[in-house]
């Protein structure tokens, strides 16, 4: 798999890249690295000179309070560039950490900047990505601030499942989700034991099946109804 294959697949769903744009993306100099689960990619306060393209695996963005409580802000899957903002906002204001074993590709800021200046459609596509990011953050504020514990988990699972399906990375209603109980707890603002109870509640309701590191959502319509999930905020409709 070419390092940019999933990035290009994702951008092509919603934007009209031409053959020349695709070639320019493929020509980006990328240094590929394998990272273990729970390793830091870039930390709050750092000044990175590169962006991280997630080629395979899952990473999260998070902030930690002075009291040591971590809040996960977003979860990213292959094809995402979760720290694209560092191209223009030079000091990181949050942490970027792997959730699972990951293959990542580092792209120097200079090369990315040159690409966006030469290929305006690519620049628009990447800009659009960061706008979708903020739409997802808005939805997460509602999730953590206003939904019940069971709806919070339902919404998180519906979001990850939907995003993976759009990218053809799910097998029907089943997908890989290598998150620990603690990771899920930090994404939902709940304790791990509370997450545990909610997982069992969804399981008893026939809405969730758990296998080791994989999840299946046998009744996605009912799960979405439970947490008023509307995929509008993911903005994944066909090329505009």
């Amino acid at each position, binding site marked *: 798999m070419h390092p940019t294959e999933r990035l290009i697949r994702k951008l092509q769903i919603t934007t009209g890249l031409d053959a020349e744009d695709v070639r320019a993306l493929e020509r980006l100099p990328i240094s590929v690295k394998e990272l273990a689960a729970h390793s830091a990619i870039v930390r709050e306060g750092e000044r990175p000179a590169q962006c991280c393209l997630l080629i395979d695996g899952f990473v999260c963005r998070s902030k930690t309070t002075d009291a040591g409580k971590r809040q996960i802000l977003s979860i990213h899957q292959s094809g995402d560039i979760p720290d694209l903002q560092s191209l223009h906002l030079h000091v990181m204001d949050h942490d970027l950490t792997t959730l699972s074993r990951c293959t990542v590709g580092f792209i120097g800021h200079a090369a990315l900047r040159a690409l966006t200046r030469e290929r305006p459609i690519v620049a628009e596509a990447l800009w659009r990505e960061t706008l979708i990011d903020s739409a997802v953050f808005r939805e997460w504020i509602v999730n953590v601030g206003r939904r019940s514990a069971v709806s919070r988990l339902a919404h998180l699972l519906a979001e990850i499942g939907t995003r993976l399906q759009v990218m053809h990375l799910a097998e029907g209603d089943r997908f890989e989700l290598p998150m620990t109980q603690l990771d899920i707890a930090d994404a939902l603002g709940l*304790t791990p034991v509370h997450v545990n109870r909610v*997982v*069992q509640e969804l399981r008893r309701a026939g809405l969730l099946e758990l296998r080791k590191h994989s999840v299946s959502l046998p009744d996605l319509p009912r799960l979405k109804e439970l947490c008023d999930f509307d995929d509008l905020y993911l903005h994944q409709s066909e090329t505009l």
Partner: protein
Amino acid sequence: MARYFFHLVSPGESSKDDIGTDLPNAEAAYLEACDTALELSYEMLRERLDPSRHAFEITDAEGHLVFELPFAEVTRPADRMPRRGDLRASIHRQHEHTFRIISELRTNFDQTQSLLKSTKALLTQI
């Protein structure tokens, strides 16, 4: 790390935890139970349920009871948050409570027995 199971005991029913949570020791399990009891209490109050009628029963991987945490212990107004060392105090309080009940039962039993004895003695006099 050891796996602890947090069973929720509610009036008339008990909801088993069949997944469990990995924690370093019983003290960490106690603090985790306190945090979770507080979170569940908020949700119960919103549904007009009384949290003080619920408790966590924490068991280890072998199914042995490690400790119990009545939600009242967390929701009762206190001047500080739960912290390390509280588990010992909580278990101590529960032990004292149990011993008090045992000794009350014993006193009742003794009283009933002596009552029975005097009743029997009275019966033989008839």
